């Protein structure tokens, strides 16, 4: 007698929101969108030799080798890890069964390291205009983040206010690679005030690499170790920076999102901070409860999701950091270390939790996202259960 276990949920049945995909902004493309006083500078940048994520004056040196550049013998990779247009992005995400993508920049991941703050602010403005015109067609399912340049909080706030009502800008990107001071500093608080009022989450994103400034040089010299440490330490240090100045209490409705650091660091940091808090509550008197009570309301993108031999180990860790409702899938397409949706979808969890991780949590985090028609009915059903 055959036993019918019912249809198995497949990637195609499920709304998949990708919290982290990358466009590739080049000076040749951005130049027309920057103000006349800076246009020549950007056109000059276009004459400099192109290097992937390391173009002089455009994406300041990683401070370390990039994967693929120095790996012994090369990796023999067969694909170009760049997306040049919205059409290409839509097509490639569709091939991965991804329905919605949230765009981060490529070169401007390092915008915090551009030394001239006025230039950086103008680059961000130009980037937003370029995105608006070429990537965020109302008909597609691509969304974007407003770049908050740390050098110039007035400029950052102005851009947030400019796009606060725009249906396709869903959050504020806090460039984390080589940012100084870290994002908890009081000078940035107006950014959080404005983002909170606009209902926009802030999303931190770093870059693989270390420098004398930040993320700290922990003396790694090979790609494996650098890539293990860099994004993770960047996120941990900034989470602690937010906690140090009371940001979760000053801006209680602000959603804070951490990216590209995987998930397994979260239980570690929560437990360590809780331990230290026992002895030193006076150092952080803003809080009514232990640090993990606030961290459990923060958000964590999955990529690069850890892949233990026993996947239940990862499921246990997600449970340990109360992550079921706070974890959102990200692929990091088209980068070298992207995750196929299966890496999260195949985890041994219930169908409902799968759907939360792959898209339903993202709808709560980024409520501006328009649900593709195909999923409208099932999402409505789910929304009625909330």
């Amino acid at each position: 007698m055959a036993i019918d276990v019912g249809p198995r949920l497949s990637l195609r049945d499920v709304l998949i929101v990708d919290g982290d995909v990358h466009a590739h902004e080049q000076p040749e493309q951005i130049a027309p969108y920057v103000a006349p006083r800076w246009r020549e500078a950007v056109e000059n940048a276009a004459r400099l030799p192109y290097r992937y994520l390391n173009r002089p004056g455009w994406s300041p040196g990683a401070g370390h080798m990039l994967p693929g550049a120095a790996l012994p013998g090369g990796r023999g990779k067969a694909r170009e890890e760049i997306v040049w247009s919205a059409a290409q992005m839509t097509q490639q995400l569709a091939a991965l069964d991804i329905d919605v993508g949230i765009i981060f920049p490529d070169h401007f991941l390092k915008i915090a390291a551009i030394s001239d703050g006025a230039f950086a602010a103008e680059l961000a403005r130009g980037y937003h205009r370029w995105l608006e015109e070429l990537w965020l067609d109302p008909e597609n399912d691509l969304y974007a983040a407003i770049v908050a340049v740390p050098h110039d909080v007035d400029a950052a706030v102005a851009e947030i206010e400019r796009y606060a009502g725009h249906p396709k800008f869903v959050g504020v990107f806090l460039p984390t690679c080589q940012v100084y001071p870290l994002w908890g500093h009081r000078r940035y608080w107006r950014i959080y005030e404005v983002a909170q009022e606009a209902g926009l989450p802030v999303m931190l994103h770093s870059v693989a690499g270390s420098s004398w400034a930040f993320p700290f040089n922990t003396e790694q010299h090979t790609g494996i170790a650098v890539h293990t440490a860099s994004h993770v330490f960047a996120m941990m240090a900034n989470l602690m920076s937010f906690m140090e100045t009371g940001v979760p209490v000053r801006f209680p409705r602000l959603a804070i999102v951490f990216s590209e650091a995987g998930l397994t660091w979260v239980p570690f940091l929560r437990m360590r901070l809780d331990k230290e808090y026992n002895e030193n509550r006076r150092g952080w008197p803003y809080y009514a409860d232990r640090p993990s009570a606030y961290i459990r309301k923060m958000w964590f993108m999955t990529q690069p999701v850890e892949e233990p031999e026993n996947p239940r180990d990862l499921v246990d860790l997600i449970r340990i950091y109360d992550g079921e409702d706070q974890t959102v899938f990200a692929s990091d397409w088209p980068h070298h270390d992207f995750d196929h949706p299966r890496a999260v979808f195949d985890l041994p969890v219930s169908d409902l939790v799968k759907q939360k991780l792959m898209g339903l949590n993202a709808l709560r985090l980024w409520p501006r996202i328009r649900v593709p028609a195909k999923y409208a009915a099932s999402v409505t059903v789910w929304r009625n259960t909330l």
Partner: protein
Amino acid sequence: MAEHVVARAAELPPGARRVVRVGRLEIGVFNVGGTLHALPNICTHQFGPLCLGHVGGTVLARAETGYRFEWGLDGQIISCPWHGLEFDLTTGRCLAYPRVRLRTYPVRVEGEEIILTA
């Protein structure tokens, strides 16, 4: 299991490959130094299209040389195009994980035809 003619022998000289579809399976057939090998077109990592990857050598480091970096196994190693996980075409063995080995399919030349059993 059944036998399938997947190519003419002349179409697969040393260094060449062909990825074929047999029923619902995708299988890569490779000529490595005159010997044919066949592996599934699925990487064990995130199920990428392994057999479309770069074929070449790899970095080895042996105790006998004090773990000096050496280049070897040229033409024998395929790297998955998605994340670079390496497999030995001649054995299906994954270089990074001692216990991971892809199944291989019997493949032979008969007359002028290449015959895959899958």
